[in-house]
């Protein structure tokens, strides 16, 4: 195999990465801009980060975002896991195909429609829009993502593990908590992380379902940008990027280490 760096390969990589990361790099660079003008470089400074932490509006929005993210991700994980269990385990119940289609439909549903229909529902039921409706909406759309992640793990789950546990005297509920749950936990955790990430950066559905006093960070940024991009917003975005990047890198490092450890163990076992 020819693995040398041909000119074509280099061009393809440079173009691809530029396409993906140039906007982000620009944003990060300009967050350290001394000048108040977003597109003109006026020297290095961290003053926008300082002023960001004094911007009460942005800080409140960040706090709302984190709370909504934590609550909705947790609820979505519980519901999504239950849905995945039902769909993989009880394959013979009536209307299973319809039900599984309905669970996954929100994956491809345009966000505008999800948002609008939730809004109509909340109005019809007479729920005042705010933190509660926002959280409900986030649970609704992120639940199906959790279900997909957990279901893909459950499909490869060896049912004989559960049978073995029952055979050894563990009733079904105990079997679930002592065997099934620990084994599928990594999938549940990554489902939670996915739900949390989706919740944090959602704008469309939040705009429909939120009310006064429950403005999320993306909503706040969007509304401020309409008045003009300030370096403060760049700084806020840079922090968000840093948090997400750290999370992703940490998760993949943990995974990688576990994989390496596993390979080493297996080799050791082969040697006897």
């Amino acid at each position, binding site marked *: 195999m020819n693995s040398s760096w041909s000119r074509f390969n280099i061009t393809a990589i440079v173009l691809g990465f530029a396409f993906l990361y140039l906007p982000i790099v620009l944003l990060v660079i300009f967050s350290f801009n001394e000048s108040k003008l977003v597109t003109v470089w006026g020297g290095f400074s961290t003053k926008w980060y300082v002023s960001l932490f004094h911007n009460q509006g942005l800080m409140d929005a960040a706090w709302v975002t984190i709370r909504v993210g934590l609550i909705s991700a947790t609820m979505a994980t519980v519901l999504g896991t239950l849905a995945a269990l039902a769909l993989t385990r009880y394959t013979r119940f009536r209307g299973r195909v319809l039900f599984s289609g309905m669970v996954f439909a929100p994956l491809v549903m345009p966000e505008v429609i999800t948002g609008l229909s939730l809004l109509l529902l909340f109005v019809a039921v007479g729920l005042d829009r705010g933190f509660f409706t926002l959280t409900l909406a986030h649970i609704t759309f992120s639940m199906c993502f959790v279900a997909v992640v957990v279901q893909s793990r459950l499909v490869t789950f060896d049912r004989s*593990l559960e049978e073995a546990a029952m055979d050894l005297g563990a009733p079904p509920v105990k079997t679930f908590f002592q065997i099934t749950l620990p084994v599928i936990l990594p999938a549940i955790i990554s489902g939670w992380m996915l739900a949390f990430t989706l919740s944090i950066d959602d704008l469309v559905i939040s705009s429909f379902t939120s009310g006064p006093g429950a403005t999320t960070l993306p909503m706040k940024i969007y509304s401020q940008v309409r008045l003009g991009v300030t370096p403060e917003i760049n700084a806020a975005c840079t922090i968000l990027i840093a948090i997400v990047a750290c999370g992703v890198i940490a998760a993949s490092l943990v995974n990688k280490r576990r994989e390496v450890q596993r390979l080493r163990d297996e080799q050791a076992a082969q040697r*006897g």
Partner: protein
Amino acid sequence: MKSLGNIRREFAPWNKPDAKPYIQFKNVTKRFGDFTAVNNLSLSIYEREFFALLGASGCGKSTLLRMLAGFEEPTSGQILLDGQDLRGIPPYRRPVNMMFQSYALFPHMTVEQNIAFGLKQDGMPKAEIEQRVTDMLKLVKLGQFAKRKPHQLSGGQRQRVALARAVAKRPKVLLLDEPLGALDKKLREETQFELMDLQQTLGLTFVVVTHDQEEAMTMADRIAILDKGEVMQVATPAEVYEAPGSRFVADFVGNINMFEGKVADRDSSGATITSANGVTIRTANAGDAAAGSEVAFAIRPEKIKVSSKKPENGDNVMEGEIYDIAYLGDMTIFHVQLGNGQVVKASSLNATRATEDPLSWDDKAWISFRNDAGVVLTR
């Protein structure tokens, strides 16, 4: 103390009319939708027996085991264990334990925790659990691996952990689903004997499911041969091999030559059979085959002698040509084509390094066998 051999030789409760079966399948049928996995099957297994369910895949043997463990309920019929009807009793309340084909070791637990799992469910005191786990690890010779996780073990070690976990609770019956299926040949042979020793030591009833007839023959006291959810024959390994009850069993277990034909003559000393393709065979074992009935004469390859010269005397002598030779090291299998075109397999043990009578391809050869070497099959 009696030797293992004596125990095994004397052990034959199925021949005693007053012996009470320990496990009883009574007219058990199991259907999955339109598919009948087990069809009106009755079977008795005795206490301390090493019982093998042998059959090709899809014959219903695993379904039988799973019904005994409680993972499936029979569609109709009854399963009794020590006189108690098992219907409606969930797997976690049955006094049987199972060793799974995939071993089903809990991946997030160490070897120790795996073995202790069942004991914990019973609420056994901690000190006792520790003692029992230590005993079990010693029994399967895995003491130094107690703290390892299953993925840190080799295939053979995992098999032992699965075994230790299944016997830790001292079940009345141990069910083994293809217990040696995932091991390589050498290890499988060793483990067979270890399983037999273990069964004797613990005095348990073993029910093993296997598709490997050698495995079943080596280990089991009795074998049930299954086909399409029905029992074809239940007998000791020697009976199954030497006195198969039907064409299916004869063909399924080991190698065999079959001559389809009619009983031409029947008398007190045996019968004469003329096969459809014109071979006449004299046999002493004719069973209940009546004169004129359609039968098959079946004979195992090792009971047929091959020679380059016509044997002086022999009950059945036929002339042919060497069609093919399979040299297996310990023995050689000759495929001899008879005058009528039928190919007969005959194997001879290579007792000496060089044969004084080497037979080669296309050589003229004679096959011969005694008149008590084969059996007549009516079914």
